[in-house]
């Protein structure tokens, strides 16, 4: 039965349709794996009984027409799920039970999937190691002392440990791609506006996007297709047809032009990352792609401008947590004291840090110097990509400047933690799609990913290129299931 949990999403969907196995068998095998993996701390809330019931009902009278018929899926606990606790990894929402469903998750359920549970993440998705979660840190299946990255760390670990066939995360500055890279899985951040943000706990609204996290590129194409839609409930959702990403998936990438940006060769980058990047170039050359050197001159300003824009938006978004309408409430003699105590007790350190930075850069006298300046730099970063995409079809870079790091290593140094996202953040600022695909190992046998950045709404091209890399890299996750109890 356990082999079922190792199958890809596409083979599970096909197997159910061909009645090779039932939804109940599949669901049982993921529940069993999940129950034996408590050491990884991936779940905040489980929905196992409910999932089993859904599976049994499906087996009795299921509709086999959906893209995800009969498939249990655990999702990041940032997606509001009707009648099921949604915490965003925060004490602030520890008692919050949404009365509505996010558009992205309801798209999955419409395609025949059902909820297996809610996965741990950094508090309000602010973090790169899953250590800021109120519900304790998540462990990477690659080692009992390693972080899975973040903020979608619970999602990445659960996927890599076969606790869920696929999962969805959110990515504001790298929160899908960095944990995917750290766990040897595939993660895609769609173009801004491709997936609805309705019902996702907001962090930085001009940067946030939901996206698929999967075992391989084919699954990624299928899940992206299932979750994407135009949604009038999200004013920044873009009404462009969702492609048949899976049907159109091909490794024939001959003649595509791939840009290699010199600016991504950062100081102190380990040789093995550089080596992996060169290997990626060789894979794509072998597939017939044309490699071009390009320049994205404002790359080094992306991270500083992100750390103005994202906290500014966060400080404004998180103003809603005031102890009045929902969430945690502390006592206070006056209204203001109640607000101040609620927010002091309900938020963790990193969230407070970001709210305070955001408040500072938006405060009177500093607004022009910081916030407007950052928006101008954001324009320059977007201009860099616009210029480059006149001459190339996609851009290839490493996903992260290192492999997974140890729990506690960077916890007390915010800047060194932020530097993790140096390769992923520019894409969010420019609103472009990007994918991380596992392509090799470092000297400690920890997985490393390559990132492909595409033109706006051209997810298909980066999926195709990733498939070409996947076939040539021959990456296999090597994990001995040490966590099993």
């Amino acid at each position, binding site marked *: 039965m356990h082999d079922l949990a190792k199958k890809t999403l596409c083979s599970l969907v096909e197997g159910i349709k061909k009645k090779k196995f039932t939804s109940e068998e599949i669901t049982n095998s993921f529940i069993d794996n999940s129950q034996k993996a408590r050491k990884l701390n991936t779940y905040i809330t489980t929905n196992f009984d409910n999932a089993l019931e859904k599976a049994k009902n499906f087996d009795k009278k299921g509709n086999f027409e959906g893209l995800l018929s009969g498939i249990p899926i655990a999702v990041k606990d940032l997606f509001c799920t009707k009648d099921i606790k949604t915490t965003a990894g925060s004490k602030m929402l520890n*008692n*919050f*039970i949404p*009365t*509505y469903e996010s558009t992205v998750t309801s798209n999955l359920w419409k395609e025949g999937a059902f909820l297996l549970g809610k996965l741990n993440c950094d508090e309000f998705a602010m973090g790169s190691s899953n250590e800021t979660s109120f519900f304790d840190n998540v462990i990477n299946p690659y080692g009992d002392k390693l972080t899975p990255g973040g903020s979608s760390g619970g999602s990445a670990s659960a996927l890599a440990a076969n606790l869920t066939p696929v999962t969805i995360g959110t990515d504001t500055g790298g929160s899908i791609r960095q944990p995917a890279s750290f766990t040897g899985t595939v993660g895609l951040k769609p173009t*801004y506006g491709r997936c609805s943000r309705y019902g996702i706990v907001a962090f930085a609204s*001009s940067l946030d996007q939901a996206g698929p996290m999967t075992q391989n590129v084919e699954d990624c194409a299928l899940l992206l297709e299932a979750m994407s839609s135009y949604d*009038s409930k999200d*004013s*920044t959702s*873009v009404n462009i047809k969702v492609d048949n990403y899976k049907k159109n998936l091909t490794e024939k990438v001959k003649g595509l032009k791939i840009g290699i940006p010199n600016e991504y060769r950062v100081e102190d980058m380990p040789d093995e990352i550089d080596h992996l990047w060169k290997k990626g170039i060789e894979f794509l050359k072998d597939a017939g792609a044309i490699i071009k050197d390009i320049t994205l001159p*404002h790359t*080094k*300003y992306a991270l*500083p*401008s992100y*750390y*103005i824009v994202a906290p500014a938006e966060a400080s404004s978004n998180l103003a809603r947590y*005031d*102890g*009045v*309408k*929902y*969430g*945690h*409430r502390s006592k206070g*003699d*006056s*209204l203001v*004291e*109640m*607000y*101040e*105590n609620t*927010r*002091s007790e309900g*938020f963790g350190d990193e969230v*407070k*840090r970001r709210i*305070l*930075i955001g*408040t*500072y850069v938006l*405060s009177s006298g500093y607004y022009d110097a*910081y916030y*407007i*300046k*950052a*928006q*101008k*730099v*954001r*324009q*320059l970063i*977007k201009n860099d990509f616009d210029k480059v995409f006149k001459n190339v079809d996609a851009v290839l870079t490493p996903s992260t400047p290192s492999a997974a790091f140890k729990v506690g290593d960077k916890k007390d140094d*915010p*800047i060194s933690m*932020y530097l993790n996202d140096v390769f992923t953040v520019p894409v969010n600022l*420019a*609103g472009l799609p990007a994918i991380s695909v596992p392509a090799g190992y470092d000297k400690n046998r920890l997985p490393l990913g390559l990132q492909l950045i595409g033109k706006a709404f051209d997810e298909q091209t980066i999926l195709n290129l990733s498939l070409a890399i996947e076939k040539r890299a021959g990456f296999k996750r090597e994990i001995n299931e040490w966590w099993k109890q």
Partner: protein
Amino acid sequence: MSIDKDTVKHISKLARISLDDKKVDSLSKNLSSIIDFIEKLNELNTDKIIPLTSIIEASLSSRKDEVNNEKIRDQILKNSPEKNEEFFVVPKVIE
């Protein structure tokens, strides 16, 4: 630029987050290092650049001006920490 303790106290007041003295100390250090980091942007001359306010090129769409009479008051109140029939309850504001 460094963020001194008085500035930390001022912005925490604006952000409605109460902080004890120990926290003010550590945040003053943390926030100063973050501000130093973001001040790298000052190297760039951006005088002639228009700030990017939206990444979406299409303008926002408008919906029809129709009454959307969803009766969701109970749903909205469902998660409130303290309520009284159809009201949110907060500490006394007016003497």
